[in-house]
């Protein structure tokens, strides 16, 4: 078998067809290799990959609770250090585990400077419990706890800027990546693993079930997020942005209209005011990170 087929993340798991998180897991393990210990938070990834007595993980793997993967990883790094072992430690969690309930443990572990990599597969809501809003849910997305309705256009708050928060902890390497560009994702995971100290990689992982699109469109949606400027793929080294993926930007509408979670912005009638607000978020991202490629007219 080729390297890609002979993954450390076994194909026999129970993720939905078109699951970006599963794709991310495989890419992460491709990059990390066998000398890696994975600490999984409770969530989709944990549930679809480890129904007892089966496991999809061909590397050492542990799941304890929803909110403590960073703290468990702290203990593992300490034990490895004491035992003189060289394995790498990756804590893995969805956005609920990372942005919300596990924030205390995450902040503590980053402040203490443990040598580990935290990878968040960000599907922008609590998918395992049925698509509830999280601190990573984007503005206006309709979820089961931020439903669009007669007097609501969905989630009222913009996404929490977790990469900046973790960079402010003094993390030497913080990056965002997406399943749309797997070689880039792998490169970033490798770089994080090769950097001493706590590093963070946030992987944009569209969820066909939660966002409302057909499974075969996962990569297309992921690409559109980048191309519209709603998701920015970048690297920060010691708090400074050192690399950004530039794009010829498309209007946000092209991304929004493909997903059920934004359907209320187009039906029963088009909500120009709200679409404009989301466009402003993309414009802000573009300005902040300088992602625009301006084609000569």
């Amino acid at each position: 078998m080729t390297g890609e087929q002979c993954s450390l993340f076994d194909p026999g798991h129970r993720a939905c067809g078109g699951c970006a998180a599963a794709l991310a897991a495989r890419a992460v393990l491709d990059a990390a290799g066998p000398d890696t210990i994975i600490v999984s938070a409770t969530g989709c990834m944990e549930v679809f990959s480890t129904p007892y007595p089966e496991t999809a993980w061909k590397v050492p793997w542990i799941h304890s609770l929803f909110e403590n993967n960073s703290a468990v990883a702290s203990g593992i790094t300490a034990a490895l250090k004491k035992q003189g072992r060289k394995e790498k430690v990756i804590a893995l969690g969805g956005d609920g585990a990372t942005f919300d309930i596990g924030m205390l443990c995450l902040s503590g572990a980053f402040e203490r400077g443990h040598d580990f990599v935290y990878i968040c597969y960000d599907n922008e809501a609590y998918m395992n419990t049925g698509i509830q809003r999280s601190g990573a849910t984007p503005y206006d997305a309709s979820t089961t706890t931020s439903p669009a309705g007669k007097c609501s256009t969905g989630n009222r708050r913009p996404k929490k800027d977790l990469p900046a928060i973790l960079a402010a902890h003094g993390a030497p390497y913080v990056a965002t990546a997406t399943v749309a560009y797997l070689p880039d994702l792998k490169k970033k995971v490798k770089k994080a693993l090769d950097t001493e100290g706590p590093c963070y990689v946030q992987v944009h992982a569209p969820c066909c079930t939660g966002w409302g699109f057909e499974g075969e469109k996962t990569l297309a949606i992921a690409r559109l997020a980048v191309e519209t400027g709603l998701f920015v793929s970048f690297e920060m080294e010691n708090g400074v942005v050192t690399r950004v993926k530039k794009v010829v930007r498309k209007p946000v509408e092209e991304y929004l209209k493909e997903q059920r979670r934004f359907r209320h912005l187009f039906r029963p009638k088009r909500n120009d005011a709200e679409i404009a607000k989301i466009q402003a978020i993309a414009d802000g991202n573009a300005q902040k990170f300088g992602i625009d490629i301006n084609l000569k007219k």
Partner: protein
Amino acid sequence: MMEIMEGSHAVAHAVRMCRPEVIAAYPITPQTHIVEALAEMVANCSLDAEYITVESEFSALSACLGASAAGSRVYSATTSQGLALMFEVCFNTAGLRLPVVMSIVNRALGAPLSIWNDQQDSVSLRDSGWLQFYAEDNQEATDLHYIAYRVAEDKRVLLPAFVCLDGFILSHTYEPVEMLTQEQVDSYLPPYSPVQRLDSKDPISIGLFASPDYYMEFRYEMDRAMKASSQVIREAGRRFGEMFGRDYSNLVEEYRMDDAECAIVAMGSICGTVKDAIDEMRGDGQKVGLLRIRTFRPFPGEEMKKALSGVSSVAVLDKNISLGAKGAVALEVRDALYGSGIPILDYIIALGGRDVAKKDIKSVVKMAMAGKGDLFYGLRGEVLG
């Protein structure tokens, strides 16, 4: 060598000699002296351990869980609110069968806020799958740590353990303590050798989710291990006695129980006062004895049944209350003595650090003999209004 030591420091030295590889702890009164002493030992190289200064008790136990899963012997200490914050991790640690040992410096739970002693904190974790040892004095508090590691790590058990000592009453009190030497501890407690650990040479998955087809069997295995631990505790306690002269082979201690008509049942430091009161009552011709519980989990039901079979009344001193029911110890004693017909009377006592003197014990015995019980002892009428 006999030394006059603060309880916390005696415990810290005992822990040091158990050679934990990873310590994770968070400050909380009255536990702090233990973890401060350990931090000092690490700073001065008298303890070669990784010391993680976590941001919460929740992370303290989570870090211990991770380090234990990676194959290291670990230690933490906490109390009261800190233990309450660990609630979720406590169940998880036991479920993952990780032999973490943690000192609980017993303290009341808020509200109202109280830093003083009772045993509500650890007793409230009775269903979590942790062994629970209760020390009467600082000698026992230190010795129980060696025993707890040996029992918890025994392949027949593989469950975590609390070593409970009453806050301030033991933790902040100077008493003579016979400390073992490092050689003695090494000869009693072998290095931790995990059955399995996180290791890339032999990758395993730990902490999978179990469907209804599997979950009950996991819980059954835990219960079986907890029950089996009784025998392991007896063996470890006996061996300790053979090697160092202090025998801990019984899960309970009987004090002047031979011809006792009234038996007091209690656990922890209150038993010192109880023993003194019993000596005085015996001098007055009253046939009173004490059955001291050393391990609340596993619960020594058989020992209890045997020791209490001849008494005419039992007075249980509970430093905890299962609100709307009884004290937790009394409930267990009633279960153990079910069908015996012996009256078992419960006294909720010394909550939130209220002092207990010999006269109080005598008063309880008097009430028990008269069949009066199942009450909060020593309530202040003027506070209740």
